[in-house]
């Protein structure tokens, strides 16, 4: 934390609300509308590709090639979706994605809790070294692990099964989770533990009845993040899940890229289908995602 450079008590709080002060400078308040419009346009530019994608996914092929991407659809066509479903087993990919992301989120959070308990509460020797290793694990680029993992997955026959990816990402996500939960736990008052010890609670009971309730909030945010990070992963699933039956939603569409067998409207429909689950997830957990982003950012 940077030191406060301004001493607080020297600042008189203003009796006038701040917007009135600003309004004095811009009597007509025109400026605020200009700023709003500029920001609004920027926001629209950012979401424009997604909005256009939704519109174009329902165009027929003929309509798209005749009128381009910017015109309103001539009719409501499901051609693209049908074509996409013919080349990709979308329900299967969706199921794979859900299974992988949900299991990684659940396993990852439990693993983070256990490891953080040992480091943050147990203060075991070498805890700091362990945290350093875990932090490095989150930084190492995936291409530095991929070939040995690919090789190991072949040797253990887990390649092209969801298990290879579940094991890898549970560990990679829990590395971050352990780091974060350890720092949360190290701020907990020691008196809680003493009280638990006086009550005769063992390690296991202390973890679940004293510590867990206190870090539950952080854990649920972590779970949401593990789920969405795993869902969006690309490099490792691309290599470990090349088979049709084990592909995740993003991999299924990425492998079609550049193949002439699939036309633009089918790709758009596929993109929309691949985007939909994360969009739904985003709307449900919007608050958690935008608030939780700062998790562990500043200690």
């Amino acid at each position, binding site marked *: *934390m940077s030191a406060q*450079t*301004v001493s607080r008590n020297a*600042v*008189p*709080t*203003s009796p006038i609300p*701040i917007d009135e002060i*600003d309004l004095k400078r811009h009597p007509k*308040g025109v400026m605020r509308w200009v*700023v*709003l419009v500029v*920001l609004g346009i920027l926001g629209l530019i*950012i*979401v424009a*590709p*997604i909005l256009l*994608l939704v519109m174009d996914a329902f165009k027929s092929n003929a309509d798209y090639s005749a009128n381009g*991407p*910017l015109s309103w659809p001539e009719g409501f066509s499901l051609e693209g979706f049908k074509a996409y479903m013919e080349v990709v087993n979308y329900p299967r990919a969706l199921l794979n994605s859900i299974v992988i992301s949900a299991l990684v989120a659940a396993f990852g959070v439990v693993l983070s809790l*256990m*490891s953080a*308990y*040992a*480091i943050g509460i147990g203060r*075991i020797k070498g805890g700091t070294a362990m945290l350093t*290793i*875990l932090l490095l694990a989150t*930084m*190492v*680029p*995936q*291409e*530095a*692990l991929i*070939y*040995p993992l690919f090789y190991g997955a072949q040797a253990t026959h887990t390649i092209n099964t969801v298990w290879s990816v579940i*094991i890898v990402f549970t560990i*990679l996500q*829990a*590395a971050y989770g352990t780091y974060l939960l350890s720092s949360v736990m190290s701020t907990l008052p020691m008196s809680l533990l003493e009280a638990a010890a006086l009550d005769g609670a063992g*390690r296991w009971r202390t*973890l679940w009845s004293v510590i867990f309730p206190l870090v539950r909030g952080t854990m649920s945010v972590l779970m949401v993040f593990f789920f969405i990070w795993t869902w969006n992963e*690309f490099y490792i699933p*691309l*290599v470990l899940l090349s088979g049709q039956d084990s592909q995740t939603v*993003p991999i299924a*569409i*990425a492998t079609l*890229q550049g193949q002439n067998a699939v036309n633009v409207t089918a790709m*758009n429909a596929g*993109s929309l289908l*691949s*985007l939909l689950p994360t969009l739904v*997830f985003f709307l449900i957990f919007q608050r958690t*995602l*935008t608030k939780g982003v*700062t998790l562990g*950012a*500043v200690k």
Partner: protein
Amino acid sequence: MSTVIEGPAIAPDNPPAEAIKAKGSRAVSYWLYLAPMLVGTLIVVLVPFGYNVYLSFFHWKGGLAPMRFSGLDNYKNLMVDEQFWSGFVNSLFMIVGIVIIPTILGLILASSLFDYISKQFNDTVASVLRALLYLPQIVPIAVAGIIWSWVLATQNGVLNSVLEGFGISSLPDWLGNPNIAIYAVVLMVMWLQLGYPVVIFMSALERVDPALYEAAALDGAGWWRRFFSITIPQIRPEIFVVVLTATISALKVFAPVLILTMGGPEGSTVVPSFYAYRNFFELSKVGYGSTISTVMSVLIIVIAWAMLWFQRRNLTEEA
């Protein structure tokens, strides 16, 4: 993180039985809680990484092909490999598109939303705008790549159709022209990244004492003055975190290149991670791919460590 063990302050004259027992078993039982993570990290990170470093000293085509020890050959070849160095220059482009522009723009946007829009209109307007900017962050990166290859397509692409609407006749061949393809990738990663600093900075601003802004406004400080004198100094820790994490992700960029350009045209958009991938799975030069990824890992760790050290030194100087 302090690792100083503060012994429980239990009165020594009447210690509970549990405390005495715990002293003996402490070292053992906490290790049990860490064991699964230790084993997992060994299997998934440490052993593969070690093996990757080991492979970088060999020539190997993968699979059942013979492994021939080659010492530092791969490293020597890499140092004079033009494709690697141009990939490195492309990494600098990624730093511009992921670190520099989004962080500066994100600061201005977060501050506008927090210190202007929220106060001039209301929090809902600011939240909606924030959500719009954050949306690309949750799009799966593979899907984002597909969307952008459609946006940037030369024929009937969204961007060129818009340019055509403005009456521009010589439409750029975004993904086919070696001179501009890298800018197309930069455009996409900027779009992906922008929401992240905005969200982090906005929640950082919530912990700043509003009295600071009010006093500055009373003293007649305009928005820009408040931006430079209050916003930036107050949220420096978050700015540092954003720059650090964004730098690491800039050096790791892979999916946008694979999906948008496949490293082309004429290798003009190859980045190191993609070059390693190509050596592993297309060119069957596993040893060489390992060398590239080892060099990149060391580079990322050194940069991260240097940034953290620099940050810590600044803090101690201030204190």
